């Protein structure tokens, strides 16, 4: 049976590269793969295209990458907890694309689940529909039709949101076994479960690495076959 446990230094040297796209789960400071982020910061890798919900707080988690100017582009739903990100966005140092939090989840889910896109009512008639295709359900004909932003709404209207996929995902787990089965804890689970499905190479940092067989199959939230590497992470001590 494969043992996927490796070191942070080795996996980053072998699998991460300048200009890569990376899925970084986490909600503010919890569920962020901070040990992997520290490992990345120990290298010269830069020019990252990040997909995340937010950018933690200044100097913590994803905020470390912001402070070190490693992020070129980011797709996220909120940067309000990190004034440094706001500042770099205003200065044009980080190119930002906002995406409603639920749409972000579904875009990544589609990317990981082989779905060509999703239709969501979220963001219709807001700036979130700009540049995107809109569809409306015609109840009489029983079919969807494409509509223009200014067309009056007659039936239920949806934005076509396209899938997101990345080169690498940094996942934060509570427990992982040496084969790569994963359990998350409480609200640290957040985006980790869905983000783990949508990268070419998935690295899990676990607070606790356990032997295969110790995790109950019914409790496993991310199964081993989508995980490529497991590294030892640190436990969260403050929220």
């Amino acid at each position, binding site marked *: 049976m494969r043992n996927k446990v490796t070191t942070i230094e080795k996996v980053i040297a072998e699998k991460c590269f300048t200009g890569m796209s990376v899925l970084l789960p986490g909600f503010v400071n919890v569920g962020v793969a901070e040990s992997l982020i520290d490992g990345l910061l120990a290298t010269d890798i830069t020019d990252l295209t990040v997909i995340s919900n937010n950018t933690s707080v200044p100097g913590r988690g994803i905020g470390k990458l912001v402070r070190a100017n490693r992020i070129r582009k980011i797709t996220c739903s909120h940067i309000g907890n990190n004034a440094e990100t706001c500042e770099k966005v205003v200065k044009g140092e980080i190119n930002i694309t906002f995406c409603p939090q639920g749409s972000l989840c579904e875009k990544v889910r589609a990317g990981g689940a082989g779905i060509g896109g999703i239709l969501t009512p979220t963001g219709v008639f807001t700036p979130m529909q700009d540049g995107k295709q809109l569809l409306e359900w015609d109840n009489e004909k029983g079919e969807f039709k494409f509509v223009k932003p200014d067309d009056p709404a007659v039936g239920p209207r949806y934005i076509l949101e396209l899938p997101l996929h990345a080169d690498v995902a940094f996942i934060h787990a509570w427990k992982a076994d040496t084969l790569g089965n994963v359990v998350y804890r409480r*609200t640290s689970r957040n985006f980790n479960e869905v983000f783990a499905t949508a990268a070419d190479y998935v690295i899990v940092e676990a607070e606790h690495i356990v032997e295969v067989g110790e995790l109950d199959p019914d409790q496993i939230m991310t199964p081993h076959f989508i995980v490529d590497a497991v590294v030892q992470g640190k436990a969260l001590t403050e*929220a």
Partner: protein
Amino acid sequence: MSCDLTGKDLIAWRTARFFKDGNVVNLGIGMPTKCLDYLPEGVDIWIDTENGAVGLNGAPQPGEDFDPNVVDAGGRPSKLRVGSACFDSFRSFGFIRGGHVDITVLGAYEVDARACLANWMIPGKAAAGMGGAMDLVTGSKTTIVMSTHTDKNGNPKLVHKTELPWTGWRCVDYFVSELAVIHFIKDEFGIPRPHLEEISKNTTINEVIQKTGAALIVDRDIRILEDA
């Protein structure tokens, strides 16, 4: 029994009167969390947090043991109550968009006469992002905006037409202020219209109309807000 609160406390008290026992309620950051101080007797609600839990139970007390893996939608440490459940973000937003959250309470920059909400960006100012607000107002069964009736310059918060980018289109059900409760009810064409339902005992219908930027429909018995 009439309530003697004023200002934001009165708004929170009245908003909490919308909660029914067993409701799943998502409270925005800031003023909406004040509703918890005024839950009606016998009403036990489940606090939903879009980052993946239902059953939040307030912040840990200083010195109290807590799990740093539990945070609220503002990223602050929180506790879980007995009976709570955790889930991942995509299911959390599936629950929200799918209409499984009873009530969302949030603040506003402006609400317009067709129940459109603007609360996430002001053009020309740096935007922090919408977070989960767009999904919450689109999918929740009932969306309540808690707001002072006018801003600090005296301008109405409920306006005829807002120039601000929307968070949600025709999404607000109730606008609750220290002066009034305004209920958006769909007309025969399905368009929400603002009906005045309650006014504070400290005001008059005329004062409410004068301090509101949208034309209010006054077509029913107006109740006293403090008697709700």
